[in-house]
C-alpha cells in the first residue's frame, strides 16, 4: 500500500514538473516573434546576438545576422522581434542606426561607444511585412513634424548647417532643416522649422538675419546681446528673428522670407 502512495506522490511531483516545463516551452513559443530583414547602406557597428532594436529605449528585438547582399549592394540585417512588437510594425515603420555623435556643441548617444550601435525604430501601425528599408539618417524629430515649416531665401549660406538654431532675443525658437537651391538657381532655399509653441512669434513683418560666423564674433567683441549664443553660432551658424510688432498676421506654413546676410546686417547696424 505504502508503495502505491510513494509512487503516486512521485507521479504528482513529476507531473507538476512536466506542466511547468510544458508551460515554459509554450511561453517561449508564444513570445517568439518573426524574423524581419532591414537593409542599410552600412552595417556600422552592429553585432549579431548583441545589438538590439529599440523603441524609445525599450528592447523590441535582437539582431541575429548581418549579411552583405551583392544584388542590391546593401547590408541586410536579420532581426528577431518580439511578438508584441509585431503588432505595431506596419510597412511604413522607420528604422535607423543610432551611433554616437560628437559635434562642436552636442554630444549624444555616448552609451553606444561601449555597447555598440543599435537600431532604433519608429513603429507605424499597418499591415505587417518582413522586409524594411532602413533610413540612413534619423528621421525628422517628431517635434519638428508639428512645427511651423517656412522657407528662407538667402544669397549665402554663411556656415548654416542642418540643426542650426533660430533665435529670437537669444532664445532658440526653431531650427534649420534641409537646404537646397531656389527654382531660379540664384539663391539658396533653407527650410526652417519654428517650434509649435513659438509659431506665433513669426509674423509677416518678421525679419531674419544670419548671425553665423564672423558676425557673431563681431558682436562678441562689441558686447551685444548675442554674446551668449555667439560661441555656439560661431560653430554651427544661426539665424536670428526680429519681429518689430505683432500687428500683422502669423506666418503660414510654406511662407518664404528673405534672410539678411551677415554683411548686410553689419551695414545696417553701422548706419544706425
Amino acid at each position, binding site marked *: 500500500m505504502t508503495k502505491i502512495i510513494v509512487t503516486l506522490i512521485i507521479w504528482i511531483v513529476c507531473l507538476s514538473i512536466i506542466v511547468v516545463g510544458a508551460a515554459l516551452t509554450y511561453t517561449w513559443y508564444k513570445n517568439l516573434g518573426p524574423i524581419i530583414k532591414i537593409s542599410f547602406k552600412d552595417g556600422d557597428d552592429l553585432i549579431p*546576438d548583441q545589438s538590439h532594436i529599440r523603441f524609445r529605449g525599450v528592447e523590441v528585438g535582437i539582431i541575429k545576422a548581418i549579411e552583405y547582399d551583392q544584388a542590391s549592394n546593401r547590408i541586410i540585417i536579420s532581426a528577431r522581434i518580439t511578438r508584441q512588437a509585431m503588432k505595431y510594425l506596419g510597412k511604413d515603420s522607420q528604422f535607423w542606426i543610432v551611433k554616437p555623435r560628437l559635434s562642436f556643441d552636442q554630444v549624444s548617444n555616448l552609451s553606444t561607444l561601449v555597447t555598440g550601435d543599435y537600431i532604433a525604430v519608429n513603429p507605424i501601425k499597418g499591415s505587417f511585412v518582413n522586409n524594411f528599408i532602413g533610413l540612413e539618417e534619423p528621421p525628422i524629430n517628431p517635434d519638428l513634424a508639428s512645427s511651423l515649416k517656412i522657407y528662407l531665401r538667402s544669397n549665402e549660406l554663411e556656415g548654416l548647417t542642418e540643426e542650426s538654431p533660430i533665435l529670437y532675443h537669444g532664445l532658440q525658437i526653431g531650427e534649420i532643416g534641409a537646404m537646397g537651391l531656389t527654382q531660379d538657381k540664384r539663391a539658396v532655399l533653407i527650410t526652417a522649422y519654428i517650434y509649435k509653441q513659438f509659431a506665433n512669434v513669426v509674423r509677416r513683418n518678421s525679419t531674419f538675419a544670419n548671425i553665423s560666423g564672423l558676425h557673431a564674433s563681431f558682436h562678441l567683441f562689441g558686447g551685444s546681446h548675442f554674446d551668449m549664443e555667439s560661441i555656439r553660432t560661431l560653430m554651427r551658424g544661426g539665424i536670428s528673428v526680429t519681429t518689430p510688432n505683432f500687428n500683422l498676421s502669423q506666418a503660414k506654413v510654406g511662407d518664404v522670407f528673405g534672410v539678411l546676410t551677415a554683411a548686410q546686417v553689419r551695414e545696417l547696424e553701422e548706419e544706425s
Partner: protein
Amino acid sequence: MHQHDLRPNQHNLYRALAFTLAAMVLYVPANLYPFMTMRYSGLYKQATVWDGVKTLYDGGEWITATIVLMASIIIPIFKLISLFFIIVSRILNIAVAERASLLMLVDFIGRWSMLDVFLVAIMVALVKFGSFATVNADIASYLFAGVVVCTMLASAILSLQYKGKHK
C-alpha cells in the same frame, strides 16, 4: 545476460518512468531559454547553451565547444532516450538483449553529462571577482539542474532495483 531472470518491480519502473518523462519535458525549455547573462558595463548578452557552443567554436575553442556540446546537449538526450527505452521495454515485457549493459553505460556516461553546469559555476565565481563584468546564471541553468536531478533519480531507481534483484 541476466535480464530474463529479472522480474521487474513494477513500482520502481513507474517511478523511474515518471522522472524520465519529467526530465525529457524540462530538457526542451532548458535549451530554449538563456543559460547565462553577461553584463559588461552597459553591454549585456544572454546566451542559450547553443549560443555558447557557437561562440566557443567561432572563437577557436573547439575542444571546449565539443565538451559543452557533448555534456549538455548530446549526452543528456542520449541518456534520456536510453532510460526511456529501457523502462518502456521492461514495462511492456519486451526482451531486449544487452539491456543491462545499456543501463550500465547510461550510468557511466551520466557522470559526464552537465559538466557545463560546473563550467558556468566556475565562470560565475571567477567573473564575480571582476568589478566591471558580471555573469549571472539564468533560468535555463535551473532547468538544466532539474533535468540532472530527475535523470539521476530515474537511473538511480533503476540501478538500485537491478542490483537489489541481483544479490
